[in-house]
């Protein structure tokens, strides 16, 4: 069968299946299990209504456990095996990781990323949101800053490869060095600092995201509080730091933690820029070096990442829910 027909058929079966499931399950519930007639009609209706939400939730819960809970448990189980996937070695992979120099470098670099990128992106996003708020060409400025969001991480990395090029005719850093008469260096190979060069790419991409959310939050601040502050003689800095920022603190935290979660997952930039060479590995890129070769080791790294993401995620969800109330 040709792929197009297959696709159409899949859609028909999928949509039809969903409709069929809800129709048939309700029918069975209402007609056979708790029929709304006979001597217990009233009680049956109440019971049916108690079951119904679960009936509607079931496909979602089922899919969620199939695609989320099962893989998590499965991954953990897999991480207890050696590279052939046959021999059980307990927590051996985790102990080996602890003793690996590259893994420790990756953890250290990842900490730098988590500290630097969300802070920088949120700070710059807030700054831009505030500065462009009253400008006549503010929307143009915002669009320009938002634009990198539309570029894939790999694409962005390729662009920045030119910016960091060792050739003074292409790379901006070396062009500046050339201008003041210094010999060109390859920024990507400057140990320790090269991490920051890579991080900056992600900051460049994510600032737009932070800006959009924070500028919406800034607009949401009631005018009265600001007017009152101005009448009381607050200068612009005081208005910003003592009135505006505290009022949007919740949003700042949501933006911050969302970017943190992203940072813990992003590997494309390191993978395309350096391939983890020159001491720039972070956990996800380190995981990729084992993927498809040593599943046990790779899933062990994946688990470490998951454990690191978990608290941030919980905090993020709590804040987001608080925001919505």
């Amino acid at each position, binding site marked *: 069968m*040709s*792929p*197009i*027909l297959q696709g*159409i058929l899949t859609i028909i079966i999928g949509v039809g299946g969903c409709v069929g499931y809800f129709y048939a399950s309700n029918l069975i519930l209402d007609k056979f299990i708790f029929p709304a007639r006979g001597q217990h009609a009233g009680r049956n209706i109440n019971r049916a209504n108690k079951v119904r939400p679960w009936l509607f939730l079931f496909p979602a819960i089922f899919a969620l456990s199939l695609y989320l809970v099962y893989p998590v448990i499965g991954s953990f189980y897999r991480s207890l095996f*050696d*590279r*052939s996937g046959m021999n059980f*070695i307990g927590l*051996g992979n985790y102990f*080996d990781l602890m*003793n*690996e120099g590259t893994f420790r470098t990756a953890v250290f670099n990842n900490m730098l990323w988590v500290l630097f990128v969300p802070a920088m992106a949120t700070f710059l996003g807030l700054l831009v949101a505030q500065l462009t708020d009253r400008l006549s060409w503010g929307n143009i400025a915002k669009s320009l800053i938002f634009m990198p969001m539309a570029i894939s991480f790999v694409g962005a990395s390729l662009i920045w490869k030119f910016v960091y090029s*060792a050739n003074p005719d292409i790379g901006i850093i070396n062009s500046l060095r050339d201008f003041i008469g210094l010999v060109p*260096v*390859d920024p*990507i*190979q400057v140990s320790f600092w090269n991490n920051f060069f890579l991080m900056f790419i992600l900051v460049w991409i994510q600032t737009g995201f932070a800006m959009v959310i924070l500028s919406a939050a800034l607009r949401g601040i009631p005018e009265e509080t600001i007017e009152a502050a101005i009448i009381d003689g607050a200068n612009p800095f005081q208005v910003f730091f003592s009135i505006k920022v505290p009022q949007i603190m919740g949003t700042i935290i949501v933006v911050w933690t969302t970017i943190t979660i992203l940072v813990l997952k992003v590997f494309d930039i390191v*993978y*395309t820029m*350096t*391939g*983890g*060479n*020159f001491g720039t590995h972070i956990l996800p890129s380190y995981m*990729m*070096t*084992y*993927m*498809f*070769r*040593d599943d046990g080791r790779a899933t062990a790294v994946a688990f470490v990442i998951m454990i690191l993401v978990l608290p941030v995620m919980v905090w993020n969800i709590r804040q987001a829910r608080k925001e919505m109330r």
Partner: protein
Amino acid sequence: MKTKFYAGVATLALLAGGASAQDLIVEPGTDGFNWDSFEEFSAAHDFSGETITVTGPWLQPDAGMLRNVLAYFEDATGATVNYSGSDSFEQDIVIAVQANSAPNIAVFPQPGLASDMAAIGALAPLGQETADWMIENYAAGQSWVDLGTFANPDGEQEMFGFFYKVDVKSLVWYSPEQFDEMGYEIPETLEDLKALSAQMVEDGGTPWCIGLGSGAATGWPATDWVEDMMLRLHEPEVYDGWITNDVPFNDPRVVEAIEAYGEFVRTDGWAQGGAEASATTDFRDSPAGLFQIPPACYMHKQASFIPSFFPEGSEFGFDYDFFYFPASSERDLGEPVLGAGTQFAITNDSPATRGLIEFLKAPIAHEIWMAQSGFLTPHTGVNLDTFGDDSLRAMNEILLNATTFRFDASDVMPGEIGAGAFWTGMVDYTTQGDAQAAADAIQSRWDAMR
């Protein structure tokens, strides 16, 4: 309404299934080709109505050239062959096998991966008959058989891989025009090559363009250098032991080979931009230096595929040429050749699939691709006149004249080493210059595998 719907479906079906049978690229009967082998195969096989799926690492233009070859198989047998290429073949095939959706044939670019697949029982053995055929018909046949022989799940050695389309790596590319102008001679020995490099520096030039950059695979070109050095400094047995780690990676002989590579990349003035620039220059951009005026460098060591990345319109024999990366005169080790190649292995057996492997034994299956481009073969029964261009014929002669042929070691080593630690180690060595430390790091990674 209903007729409209049917009409719609019919149109869709036409659009989707309308890929027409491919035309034959060389008219059967054209002079020079082994049409006998084609007729003979055609008469003996009939797989009408059957479909064979093939996956491999080739994308355009290679995929198109393979399809041109497969069109002859389809024409001869009536079977349909669907080839799909992927640039992440190594990952895809593992997933497909684990998901029980393996294609009939997988084309492995790395024996290491094929070996892993054989060990979990994903490959069907090709049988003694094919092994015997290879010994008889391939130059250095036994080495090819050995490279395609892996342990099956029970630990017994069987042949799984059929080599088709190979590469020669021991090549140095240069510009004949520049060599003429400066009066440089093609070096006959490794010592001459070093003397020539020193001479070029003395004349104010830069002898080498070296580029190790390749995204996440950065460092692999350096592994080719080290492998060529291994073959030129030590017996082939040392090389074989090195691949299996019977000779540890931090053995003095391996460190010597790494340092022999370092002599080229780390000697002041030998590599364009120095060692640091070499570590990040993309291997695809690196040969551009040969074509600049004045030349940014005179020589570039790279495998047979590299002309695809030469500037548009460069002509073999005029703009560029190559010579064999020479062997050492001090150590009597013959003329070793380093290469690589792709092997066909059966991942989902069927009679038609076996038929396709049979077809690859016919000289015509090699000649059709030789007539296109980028194809070398160790098959001794082919007519070398069918090569589309002279450079390929010259390369194929290097391949057929080799006294020792060894497969790219990094492709045979376990993935973590050959496609990981070895690459990273070479980048570290190129920029920092401590061969022993780099070798120790790779060996410790090998020790940590379990």
